[in-house]
């Protein structure tokens, strides 16, 4: 019988897996603990969004989005450097954070870890865009904060075999 995740959609979409992945990535790579929050992030003139696609048993994307100041803070924590603008290193850092979050999230379920591939990260700067998926199987959209920085992680699944 072909492997399917259809019967385990409740496990795949368990929001605690995303919380655990965020905690793992930020604790190990930045040395900070993140708190889940329900208040939307304040609008900033600049924002940085990274997208890593999923393919295989699950198709969709992991989207990491944050304001420019938080992006520079995250990059500074990761590299030990200081930033006063969103340069290629900051974009690279945000792409890697998204990549690790996507990998950690899919790694929570062995079947997903083994049969779902990741794309290389794409990074978008700018504010006026919308993420639109026609008919998602499920979507997780969580806001987190550490110190005075906030970010949003979205897992969107548009196909589950």
């Amino acid at each position, binding site marked *: 019988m072909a492997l399917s995740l259809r019967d385990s959609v409740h496990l795949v979409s368990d929001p605690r897996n995303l919380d655990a992945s965020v905690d793992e990535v930020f604790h190990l790579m930045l040395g900070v603990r993140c708190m889940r929050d329900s208040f939307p992030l304040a609008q900033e003139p600049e924002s940085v969004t990274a997208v890593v696609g999923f393919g295989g048993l699950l198709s969709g994307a992991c989207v990491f989005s944050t304001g420019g100041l938080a992006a520079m803070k995250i990059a500074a924590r990761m590299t030990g450097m200081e930033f006063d603008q969103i340069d290629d*290193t900051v974009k690279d850092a945000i792409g890697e954070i998204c990549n690790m979050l996507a990998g950690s999230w899919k790694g929570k379920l062995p079947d997903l870890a*083994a049969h779902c591939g990741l794309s290389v990260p794409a990074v978008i700067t700018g504010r006026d865009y919308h993420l639109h998926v026609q008919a998602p199987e499920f979507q997780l959209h969580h806001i987190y904060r550490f110190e005075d920085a906030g970010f949003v992680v979205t897992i969107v699944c548009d196909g589950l075999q």
Partner: protein
Amino acid sequence: MREIRTLIVDDSSVMRKIVERSLRQAGLDPLVVHEACSGTEGLEVLRARQVDLILSDINMPLMDGLEFLRQLRAQDLAPGVPVVMITTESSEEHVKQAILAGAQGYIRKPFTAEQVKERVLPLLRAA
């Protein structure tokens, strides 16, 4: 003490910095680091330079880490040099593929400097 010549292959410059920092924190000193941002570039570095250790990402554009590993074994570049894969892919299947392609170690991102030390130092001692 003899310097440890290391090749770090990752398409992310930030991850290359973090891996280098982790190696230094693991006590690898003096450390000489060569960098490559794809498997193709990694092979070019190995044609020009000798190294004692290779750390490579898997998921990269142009040539991924597994193909890089197969090519370097097939072309007999860096014979006997330990290769450690550092990647977000963590399933047993991915580990098996890496071992079959010739990797001696596997580190999952995100990682700590301590994990890098635990995986790398025994390989360097044995090499």
